[in-house]
């Protein structure tokens, strides 16, 4: 009791403008806290704000010998070159399509899984379901793509054995552009649905049980209770997750795409971020690919701001 009073007093005193000296005194008094923060803040400035500063090479012709500051400005030349290149539309379409389909399919599936877990009455069974669906999340992308390779192999993989047993002819899944997006998104769902459902399961456990009782009294079926109580109960969490996902819209799954990519499926697997890697890091076109990367981040940021504003208006839930 007494201590909460002390806290509010301290909070009040900080707001009085005539007492700058007091803030200063408090800063001195807490100097050891600033000392703790020294390393982390320096790290943030170097490793997060440093690259933001370095982004100016997108508007320059970066020359390693002259450094970032010494290189000459070229304005929007790199952007124009990118927009006019023949692969621009292919990259943009693949990036948008893979992410949009992921969002449309994978996003609702994790919510559905959480609702299923929540509806299972046997505690043991629902724990088993949860724990098993988490496992793939901890397997590395390299191994996941390795599993895809052996599992979908046209000669030894069980999927093609099954197709052949049913009288079909084997499909070279990983070498056909037409299959790439399906396999990529499908395996992502397989790997992550359990993990992504945790947050919804947590939110569902917080829904007031009296609401279910009341609905039961009114004669609502189980399906209706899911629809009218469970789902509305987790809407705020769904909105937050959606905003976060859309904030990273342009760069989902890039590490995995890079591993799954080959010359035969490149037509539908080439996305902006893999292009930045192959052209920038491997071929050394730093300025050009920094510009492409900036274009990618700019779309992300605009999407995030738009969705956040929209969500705040519609559902009164937002990140800030």
């Amino acid at each position: 009791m007494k201590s909460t009073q002390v806290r509010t007093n301290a909070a009040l005193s900080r707001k009085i403008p005539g007492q700058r000296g007091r803030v200063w005194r408090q800063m001195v008094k807490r100097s050891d806290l600033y000392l703790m923060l020294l390393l982390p803040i320096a790290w943030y400035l170097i490793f997060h704000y440093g690259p933001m500063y370095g982004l100016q090479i997108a508007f320059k012709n970066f020359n390693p010998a002259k450094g970032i500051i010494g290189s000459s400005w070229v304005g929007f030349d790199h952007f124009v070159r990118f927009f006019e290149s023949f692969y621009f539309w292919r990259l943009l379409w693949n990036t948008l399509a893979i992410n949009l389909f992921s969002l449309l399919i994978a996003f609702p599936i994790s919510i559905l899984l959480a609702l299923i877990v929540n509806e299972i009455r046997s505690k043991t069974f629902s724990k088993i379901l949860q724990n098993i669906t988490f496992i793939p999340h901890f397997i590395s992308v390299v191994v996941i793509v390795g599993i895809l390779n052996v599992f979908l192999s046209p000669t030894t993989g069980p999927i093609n054995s099954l197709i052949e047993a049913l009288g079909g002819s084997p499909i070279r899944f990983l070498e056909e552009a037409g299959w790439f997006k399906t396999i990529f998104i499908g395996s992502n769902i397989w790997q992550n649905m359990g993990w992504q459902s945790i947050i919804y399961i947590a939110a569902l456990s917080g829904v007031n049980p009296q609401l279910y009782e009341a609905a039961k009294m009114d004669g609502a079926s189980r399906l209706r209770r899911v629809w009218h109580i469970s789902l509305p109960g987790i809407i705020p969490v769904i909105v937050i997750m959606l905003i976060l996902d859309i904030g990273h819209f342009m760069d989902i799954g890039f590490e995995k795409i890079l591993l799954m990519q080959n010359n035969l499926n490149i037509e539908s697997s080439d996305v902006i971020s893999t292009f930045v890697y192959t052209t920038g890091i491997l071929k050394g076109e730093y300025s050009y690919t920094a510009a492409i990367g900036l274009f990618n981040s700019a779309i992300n940021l605009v999407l995030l701001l738009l969705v956040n504003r929209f969500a705040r208006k519609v559902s009164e839930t937002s990140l800030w």
Partner: protein
Amino acid sequence: MSNQASISRSSDEKIFDAVIYTIATLIILIVLYPLIFVVSASFSDPAKVLNGEVWLLPKNISFDAYTNILHNGKIWNGYTNTIIYTVVGTIVNIIMTVLAAYPLSRPDLPGRKVLMVIITLTMFFGGGLIPSYLLVKNLGLLDTMWALIIPGAIATYNLIVMRTYFQTSIPWELQEAAHIDGCSNWRLLLNIILPLSKPILAVMVLFYAVGHWNSYFNSLIYIRNEARYPLQLVLREILLISQSEAVDANVGLENKVLLAESIKYAVIMISSLPILIMYPFVQRHFVKGVMIGSIKG
């Protein structure tokens, strides 16, 4: 009338339950099947795997693939490197995250709102791959272990989770009392806060360690020298690029092709083993971590 209604309601419930349980069972089968297949294939006679005869349980149990891996220097080297990177990296991660999270959790720290904005902003905007790569290169970290550790020293999401834990789970009164007794912030952190934060520390160690264990992309761009390759890069070579190289040179060509196939399954097993063994013990903590993180900070 009411009796009839309750009967139809309970049959309605039964159908609902049946549907839910069927879907749940299907999901379990879909998730487990590829995993079981890989385990079985890794313990089977390579010829049987190649003929597509293995579909659920191992056929003609054989450990050839595993014995071959045991003699593969590259895999062992990658394993050792990954263990070193994981241990050193996680220690750095924990120290840096605590150093940032604790002061920022203190309501009496002037300017912490500004600092939080500076930090959270980086979750939504950054310089991107190329400027980050150039930074690491200019700092002379290229081709050293530190390129894999320092640039990722703090995961902002984890930092926020930890800060939230300090704010919500440790009574502020306790910290004030310690202050009145003349306890410095360092001593407060080391002797009072950290011992009370074991659950969240465990979660952070797990998150960071799994991240280091599974990461391949940073080493792909920053590590050139094969002697420093972590396990995931060695795996990438075996699984996705040149599979037959991994096989012992002493076996004949035909066997070599066969072994190359079954080695794939075995390396998948061996690389995922530590995490899968750990999994049952730590699973609760992971869930807890995600849930703490879900509290809006």
